[in-house]
């Protein structure tokens, strides 16, 4: 395989992984603009170190690892500013805990953004990106058991934040909460 064939196929495999990589970035960062910057940095980093990628192994896992490391390194540089991104969504969420039926993706994003980063990435990798616990543990550089417990905590926290419980299915809350909600954001 010549050098140019290799890079052609590296590029092709990378392109295939990009939609998922971007979905990981957006759901992890919570802000599409910031997430796209992160994806761009990841593409450049990955390109520069393509010799360290072994063809035939998972490009997706490799890219996710680079993106994740980049995310945390940027976060350390910027301090805690990242956690502040959920402000507007957080306010909305606080006022309508029982809105089961009207739960939309915006609400979900707000709830996801409220999770600590380690729990957020764990539940995304396992619940949405399609990685096994072992693969997710490799990406995050931690033990499989740690991923499992983070996923559990994330799932419980999301249920609490979104108040998806049996009672809300049947109680009067759903309706009154949405009225309160409308009042609060008006």
């Amino acid at each position, binding site marked *: 395989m010549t*050098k*140019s064939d290799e*890079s*052609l196929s590296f*590029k092709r495999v*990378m*392109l295939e992984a*990009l*939609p*998922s990589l*971007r*979905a990981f970035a*957006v*759901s992890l960062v919570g802000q599409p603009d910031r997430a*796209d910057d992160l*994806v*761009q940095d990841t*593409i*450049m980093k990955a*390109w520069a170190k393509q010799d360290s990628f072994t063809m035939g192994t998972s490009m997706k896992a490799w890219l996710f690892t680079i993106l994740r490391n980049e995310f945390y390194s940027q976060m350390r540089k910027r301090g805690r500013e990242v956690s502040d991104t959920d402000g507007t969504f957080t306010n909305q969420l606080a006022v309508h805990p029982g809105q089961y039926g009207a*739960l939309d*993706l915006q609400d*979900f*994003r707000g709830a*996801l953004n409220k999770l600590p980063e380690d729990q957020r990435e764990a*539940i*995304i990798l396992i*619940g*949405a*990106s399609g990685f096994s616990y072992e693969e997710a543990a490799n990406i995050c550089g931690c033990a499989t058991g740690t991923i499992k417990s983070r996923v559990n905590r994330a*799932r419980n926290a*999301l*249920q609490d934040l*979104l108040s*998806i*419980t*049996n009672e809300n*299915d049947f109680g009067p809350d759903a309706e009154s909460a949405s009225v309160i909600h409308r009042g609060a954001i008006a």
Partner: protein
Amino acid sequence: MEMKEETSAGMLGRSKGGAADTVSEKLREYYVSIQNDGIPEKFLDLLEKLDEAEKAAQK
């Protein structure tokens, strides 16, 4: 009466599994909605540029 028993058994089943399922479904729905945006043009351009730069360097 039979009906009611059946329903409450169903509810019990849902109270745990149902909530977890909803969280998982929402997460996947959210993720897939982003994934379906496709690849922004700027990333394609970037890859094109990186590729060209590399080819130029090899000549």
